[in-house]
Every structure is written in C-alpha cells, then in structure tokens.
C-alpha cells in the first residue's frame, strides 16, 4: 500500500478503504505528517476540480468525509503541534432565522480537513452569539452562512455589532450561502465572500495570509 493509493481512495470518497490504507501505512512506519501533506494536496485539487465543474458536489463531499475519517483516525499518532499549527480559528454558523445548515457543514468539513480549527455554533444563531463565541475562542475568522434572501441582512448585523463594540479590526468576517455574492459582501463590508465550499479553505487561508502549502 502506498500514499498514492490512499490519495486515490480519498479521491474516490471511499472512507472505509481510506482508513484501512492509512492504518496499514502508519503500521508500516510511514510518517503521518507525510500522509497529511499528500492528502492536503488531494483535497486542494478536489476543490479546484469542483470549481472547474469537473466533479460534482456529492463527489466532493464524499472525499471530504474520507479525508476527515483518516485525519480523525490518525489524531493519536500526531503529537500536538507536530502537524504544523492550525491555519486559523474559525467561528462558523448559520445566521438568525435560518435553519439551513448543509452548506455550512460542508464548509466546516473542508476547513477541518484543511487544518483550520472550527467552532460550529449551529443554525439560527443570533448576531451577538457570533461575536461572543469569537471572543471566547480567540477566533481569527467569523464565518456566517445564509441560504435565504430574507435572512441575509443578519450577516450585516454581525458586522454592525463588531463596529459598535470596537472589535471590527479584530476579526475577519467571511460570508457565504446561495443568495450571497461579492456585491453583497462589498455592500455590507465583509472581508471575504466565498462563492462555494470548495474554494473556502484556500480563500480563507489567503485572507489570513497563510501559504496554503
């Protein structure tokens, strides 16, 4: 079994096989950090392929699940800090009045599989909650998702509250969700708009000026 085969299994989205191969690799003495590094490249290329319409959403999600399974399994093997520190801390939630969470959950999965630390504050989250949780976590990014044109104004409210409390420069505010757009991000003064889940890790890493690799 080789790292290449593991990469292929993750690309196929075969979680069981991915875990099995990863287990064999580790038992055979392969450095977990090398595995992680290769898988990160795979996930990046999957994100790119999705952006180019070469693969479809369910395929990308299956790969993300497979990747997450491997990372979870290897967690005990990777000593704290060894895998390189986290790329950034993110508070992630769906805004008030909105109970849609599929998109947010995909973003969470992809961020975690790209070594962001994510705290998911769930759906129907009050703007104040986003800010409080960010303060508590010491987050770098506040990510707010909205699927309905009627709940989008709550993304703006998060920014308004940050301004009111003099915290605006402390956090990068990232927005996403089907009805949102770059224009909307500009309009409300968000730091970043992510057009799809596949691009989120890369764009958010760039926002924090961290090299993706």
């Amino acid at each position, binding site marked *: 079994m080789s790292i290449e085969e593991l990469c292929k299994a993750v690309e196929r989205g075969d979680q069981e096989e991915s875990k099995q191969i990863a287990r064999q690799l580790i038992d055979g003495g392969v450095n977990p950090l090398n595995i992680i590094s290769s898988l990160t490249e795979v996930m990046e290329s999957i994100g790119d392929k999705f952006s180019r319409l070469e693969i479809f959403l369910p395929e990308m999600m299956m790969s993300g699940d497979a990747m997450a399974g491997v990372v979870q399994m290897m967690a005990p093997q990777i000593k704290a800090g060894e895998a390189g520190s986290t790329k950034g801390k993110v508070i992630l939630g769906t805004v008030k009045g*909105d*109970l849609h969470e599929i998109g947010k959950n995909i973003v969470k999965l992809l961020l975690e599989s790209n070594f962001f630390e994510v705290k998911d504050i769930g759906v129907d989250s009050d703007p104040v909650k986003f800010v409080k949780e960010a303060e508590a976590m010491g987050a770098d990014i506040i990510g707010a998702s909205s699927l309905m044109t009627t709940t989008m*104004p709550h993304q703006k409210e998060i920014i308004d509250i940050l301004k009111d409390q003099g915290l605006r420069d402390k956090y990068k505010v990232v927005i996403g969700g*089907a009805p949102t*757009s770059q224009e909307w991000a500009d309009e409300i003064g968000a730091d970043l708009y992510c057009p799809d889940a596949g691009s989120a890790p890369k764009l958010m890493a760039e926002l924090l000026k961290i090299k993706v690799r």
Partner: protein
Amino acid sequence: MRVNTRFQNTPGINLLTDDQCEEIYLAALEVLERVGVMVYNEEALTLLKEAGARVKRNHVILPSYLVKKALSTAPSRIAIGNRNGERAMFLEKGRVYFGSGSDTQYTMDIGTGERRLVVKQDVVNAARVIDALKNIDFAMSLGIISDVPPRSAYIHQFEALLLNTAKPIVYTAGGREDVETILAMAEVAAGSKEKLEDNPFLICYAEPTSPLVHPREAVEKLLFCSQRRMPVMYVPALMLGATGPVTMAGALVVTNAETLTGLVIHQLKNPGAPFIAGGAAPALDMGTSLCSYGSPEEHLSCAFNAAMARFYNLPSFSTAGCSDSHLFDQQAGMEAGYSILMQALAGGNLIHDLGYLGAGMTSSLEMLLLGDEMAGIARHILKGLEISKETLAMEVIEKAGPGGTFLGENHTLKYFKSAVYYPGLLNRFDYVRWKKEGAESFYDRATRKVREILKSHPPSELPSKAAQEIEAITAKIDNTR
C-alpha cells in the same frame, strides 16, 4: 342538440393519477408517524400534544388521524378580494391566477439591464406596473428593499404595494409582529376590521425549512393568521438531493409531509381557517450549486403539487415565469414561456414568480411584461374549443361558399377579437414595416412599455387620509425597531 355527447371544453394536464396521489399521501403520513418533524414553536407544540401527537422537546410524531381531521376542516375554496372591496380571485379547483414574485435582493435597472440592490421606489414602480397589467392578478413585492432599516423592510414592501395597486397582495413577513402590523395597515385600506375579514385582499406567505423542520417565525405566522382567519400559505421549497431526496417521488413525500404538518397546526388553532398548500422541489445543480428556478424539476414538482392539492381539496400556490438567466435573453424567454403554459395547464391556483431572473435573485419589470404576455397566451389556450351553433359557423360557411371571403361578414366582425389572441408585445409586423417602425427587439418594446406605464398609468391610490394613516404605521415601526 345530440344526446349523450361529451366534449372537453377546456384543456389541462394532470400529471398524477389518484392512485399516485394516494401513494405520496400515504408515504407522507408514514414519514410523520415514523420519522416525525421538528417544531420550534411552544404554542404549536402544546396544541399538537393536546391533540394527541407525541411530543418530545421539539420533536413531534404526528398520528395520521390528525392529518385526516385537518383535511376535513380546511376550506376547499377561498375567495380573495381586492383593495376596493370587490371579489378578485376564487381559489377553487381549476381556476388559475398569475402574480409576480417577492423577495429578490436585486433588480435589473429598467432599460440598462444593470443589476443593483432594490430600493423602495423599485417596489412602488413594480406595484404600478402590476396594477396596469391585464394578466397579472395579484402582487408580490419583486424585491427586498435595501434603503430602509432591515428589520422593517417587509413593512415598507407591503406599504409600497398597498398604496400603489388595488390588486390582491401576497406578502412576506418576518414573524407575528410584522403580520400584525400588515393586517392593521390592510384594515385601514379596507375601511374596517369587519370589511377586511369579509373580503380579505391579502395572503401571508410562510415556509418550512426542508427537510421536516418548522421554524419559529413560520409557525408564528401560521398560528396568527389562523387565529385571525386571514389567508396564509405554507409552501415548502426543497432542493433535490440536498434538503430532500434527489428522486422526485421522495421529494414529494417530504414536501407533502411538511405542508400537512403546517395544515394540522393551522387547523388545530382555528378549524376552518383558510389555508393554501403548494410547494416546489427545484434541482440543486450539483456542479454549480445553484438552486434552479428554470429547471424542469422545479416546474414538474409544482405541477405534481398542484395535483396533490386537488387530491386534498385544498387551494394551491405554484411557480412559473422565472429564469436562471442573469439577462433578459433567450433563456429567460424560454424558461418563462414553457413554465407559464405548463403551470396554467396544471391548474395550481396562484402562479407566482413572474418577473424573476437570476434564479430568484433579481427582479425585472421587462421580464414581468414578458410573463404578462405569456399569461395572456396561456389563458387563450386554456379556453379550449367551444362548440356551439355560433362557433361552428355553419351559416357563414354556407353564405361565403366555396372560394368566398369571410372578411366582410358580420360573424367575423362579431367574433374576431375573442376568437384570436392579440399580443401586446410580440412582433406581428412584416419585415419592411418592422424596419420602418424602428426595428425594435422584444427587449426594446418591453422597456418602452414599462416606461409608458410608469408615465401614463393612473396610479390606484387610496384616499389621502387612509394613505397617511398607513404611512404613519410604517414610520412608527421604523422608530421602534
């Protein structure tokens, strides 16, 4: 007259047999009894529990006898008035009405095609154009107003409609408070609470969150409208393969389970209160992640749910006249055209979203005019074939004789306007005349006509005292939020 003769007088499509409807209904009942639903509203949970549902925190298992009971008390017809106190729409089996859409963030600027955020004047303009259009029967705002405080945007949208068109209004609202305010404004326009109750001219829009979740605000709206016996619709919008099964039958099971849950809550609160069903299951494009308003699945699902509503004997809400295109282009015309004819034939009562571009993100008055024209054509087609002595025209056929002409006949003069559809926007000039008249494209003509309407259609205004009172209500809301 001949005995024992059957004619089909009006055409229509019914995409489901009664057995198929029953299959979907039974599966929805099984979902309600086996999987259950989430309800985030205390009053609804109490009502459900007292009625016999098993409630554990927010999770509700709904026994099917509650659904059966709700279906037996819900009215199968709802009469909707207009602002002038006349009857305007009868939401009864087989009657179709067309209307605009509501909550788009953007609008396409008239003439320039530039996409920009919606401001209040856009909704005022939309209301005036809707008021003037012959085939648009009810008004929705065609935008979320961006230049007012976000928390009172719905109130401003309703005010802009109420003060500028006399046609029935389907309104969106944040929650119970908004509905209370909007009903207070409607009472002013109607003249009194009683007059409004006797002939309501407005319908509240509420929607569950698929799959099987009933949010606090949506249920609040259901309960409050039920209590006031004001019409409300409960319309699921499920994305195939994302917020519901990717296969249509499964998607219909989920949307029907959602609608029926809303109906049960609504009828428990006040049996006999007016409730409108509906729902769509558009495709989520798995490549681009766009929720498609022009997809055949969107329009099939609406036609299926129109059939389900007929099966339940409930009035229904449907969707057509909208496009995924960001331009007023061939795709927009094609998607609006086929969907309007298809939904008209499918027979859902309230067909909304005429005037939508950009997959529900952008409104366009040119697109609304296209929808109005297409609705006119659809209505003409729905007339079907009338067979009578007059329409068989035997006398005039004999009179003209072989090789004769019908142009000068009284029969032609009498019927040429009703027998033939005359378009308002479509080109019917020959090439030379078309060139001479300015060689306009359809888009050019639509823009010109929108501008003409805004300039010359006399606005349907309320008496100034009532208008001022309504504006004062809006101002008060702005100040308290």
